[in-house]
């Protein structure tokens, strides 16, 4: 014991410098708290409009958060290249400036950082909040600091049913997603591709997202008797690693249609195990997930024929979409992956339009403008983005289907369809 302590002592001496190092580091970090306060304050000069961006680029939601960040940055770049946003009371065009915070997929941090942006960075508005939970946490701050906040990736209605004045959402409600999905399948039934009275099994994540999805589906089925019967519906924990038990239950329910609602990671994990369990249903959908390239990389042909109801697809036959894709490629060197970048991109454009409309960066004015702004030639389905009375956008969903050979087709609604739905799954 003694010689050990001697050894430790020797070790200590060797590390004296390091110890000093810790002290310095800690003191630095402690004091540095005060620094940004001033520096950022000066940074937010008069000739720019700062926009707070709070998104996860690390942690569970890191990937989609990254996509949304890119969409935002692209939009800001485009607007600034065009000279910025004309603000009447300044009498000139102002450039947009992004103040970005990564919340590491942690709701507490997310709210805290949104608050930080609103309270210390003189932002005109805050955009962000990917995934329902993080969006919910952030939404509280909007009214507290009377600062417009646009959710770019949170579609749960719960957020917008709180009577908030400053909270906006660039995603259509998830109920609509559920309803649209069944609606679409019912069309398949009408076309005779599927039989009537098919058995539906559902497994959804236990968040508002999942709850709303099930709600939408159930409501539709209730309204349109005879089409389907719901034989199984359960919730699962976010970020589970093993779904084999749940999937066994699904299998046992002898359903013809399998509707799940999951986040990207869970979608990949679950669908892999779905395939490994040798199940096949006539129709399979994972809610708003499906065409992501990650899934393709992970499961290859396994993702074929999966349907997804999404807020945007790069197959939308609008000229502005083609332009956006080109810009995005040039900006990131990648194709846009599923819908994530588009909604955040449009959120910024809507915000810019609102600021221009308000003619000032005054929070209340911008808020009012956001309520009335109507973004024409939008990328989003229907080509128009406007926020409803509760602040939530309400554009239609598109149903896409993965086809063999990395092909993704819009199969619904008809007018923007790029291919025929393939069902039942061959």
């Amino acid at each position, binding site marked *: 014991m003694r010689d*050990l302590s001697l050894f*430790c002592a020797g*070790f200590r001496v060797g590390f004296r410098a390091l110890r000093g190092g810790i002290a310095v580091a800690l003191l630095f970090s402690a004091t540095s708290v005060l620094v940004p306060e001033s520096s950022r304050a000066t940074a937010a000069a008069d000739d720019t409009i700062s926009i707070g961006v709070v998104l996860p*680029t*690390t*942690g*569970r939601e*890191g*990937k989609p958060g*990254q996509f949304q960040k890119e969409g935002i940055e692209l939009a800001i770049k485009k607007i600034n290249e065009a000279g910025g946003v004309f603000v009447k009371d300044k009498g000139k065009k102002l450039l947009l400036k992004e103040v970005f915070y990564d919340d590491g997929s942690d709701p507490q941090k997310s709210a805290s950082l949104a608050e930080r942006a609103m309270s210390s960075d003189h932002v005109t508005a805050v955009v962000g909040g990917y995934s329902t939970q993080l969006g919910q946490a952030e939404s509280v701050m909007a009214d507290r600091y009377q600062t417009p906040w646009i959710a770019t990736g949170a579609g749960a209605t719960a957020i917008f049913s709180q009577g908030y004045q400053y909270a906006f959402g660039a995603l259509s409600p998830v109920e609509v997603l559920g309803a649209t999905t069944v609606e679409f399948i019912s069309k398949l039934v009408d076309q005779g591709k599927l039989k009537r009275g098919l058995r539906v099994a559902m*497994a959804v994540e*236990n968040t508002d997202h999942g709850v709303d999805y099930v709600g939408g589906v159930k409501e539709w089925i209730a309204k349109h008797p005879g089409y389907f019967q719901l034989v199984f519906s*359960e*919730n*699962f*924990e976010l*970020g*589970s*690693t*093993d*779904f*084999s*038990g*749940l999937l*066994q*239950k699904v*299998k*046992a*329910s002898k359903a013809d249609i399998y509707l799940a609602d999951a986040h*990207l*990671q869970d979608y*990949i*994990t679950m669908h*892999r*195990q779905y*395939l*490994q*369990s*040798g199940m096949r249903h006539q129709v399979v959908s994972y809610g708003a997930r499906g065409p992501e390239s*990650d899934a393709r*990389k*992970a*499961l*290859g*042909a*396994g993702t074929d024929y999966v349907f997804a109801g999404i807020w945007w697809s790069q197959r939308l036959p609008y000229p502005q979409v083609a332009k956006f894709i080109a810009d995005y490629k040039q900006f990131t060197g990648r194709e846009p992956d599923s819908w994530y970048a588009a909604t955040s991109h449009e959120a910024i454009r809507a915000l810019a339009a609102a600021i221009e409309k308000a003619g000032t960066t005054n929070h209340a004015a911008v808020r009012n403008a956001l309520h009335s702004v109507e973004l024409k030639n939008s990328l989003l389905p229907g080509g128009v983005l406007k926020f409803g009375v509760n602040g939530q956008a309400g554009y239609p969903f598109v149903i896409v289907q993965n086809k063999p050979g990395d092909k993704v087709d819009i199969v619904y609604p008809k007018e923007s369809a790029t291919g025929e739905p393939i069902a039942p799954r061959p």
Partner: protein
Amino acid sequence: MMTAADFLNLLIAALMLAGIYGAMSVGMTVIYGVMKIVNLAHAGFMMMGAYFAYELFQRFNIDPLFGAFLALPVFFLFGMAIHWLLVRRLPKSDQPTLSSLLLMFGFWLVLQNVAYLTWGNTDMSILTPHTLSVINLGPITISTLRLVVFAAAVVSMAILQLILNRSWFGKSVRALIQNPYAAQITGVDDQKISRMAFGLGTAFAGFAGALLSMLYSFNPDFGRPFLVRSFVIIVLGGLESVPGVAFGALVLAVVETFSILAVPAGYQPAISFALLVVVLLLFPRGLAGLMQKKWRAA
């Protein structure tokens, strides 16, 4: 509504899961047994193992299964390095110490961040031709990969057990586990053995990680849920023996898989921890501990 076939499928799923669980927990047991370190970095090592297999697959198109076995020596050395660099500097104790726990936790954070910087936060996954292939025996479906992983896990654990029983290393390890002081008096170089044991534990963590990379997609945060399960397993197994781990893994896997029949899927993750707490209350020294007592009595 649960037919016999469904039941059988569940049973098989449980068995496969047990294999995975076993593989991912043995490493922790070895390290705990010899050094009484609750190795929180275990998850980090598994994550590294997954990326190791991934790189081999991407660069040299080496099948992850083979990659897993390649991981063994590599991570063995890696572990020894870590031990030499950090672990040996810990104050010695024949009881688990807070410092060891925190050191390994800190190291885990570092590993995670290194992974973020090198591979980004993208979900990686390895897609081989047989990733999705299944074996159909009438109503019973088995995922080929799970079967392979299961086999690999069982074999590796058997080998480990063999090493521990036969080799001089194993003997001294067991000596250290049973009575550190006596072992040292009888001339066991505990520093050397610890270093090798740590290497071995790390090797198996990496091995498990590589195996898991065939079944799950992974990112730098990979392994967190497995870590806590590993705890449950080694506690069930009484912390210090390979058979104990196998046993613990089986119990956990079966309970988890079949619990789905009783409880809604949402609660499933809680099952393992509930099980842990219950077991600890009934047998404060773990299930295997209970048996050991019996053996001693006999």
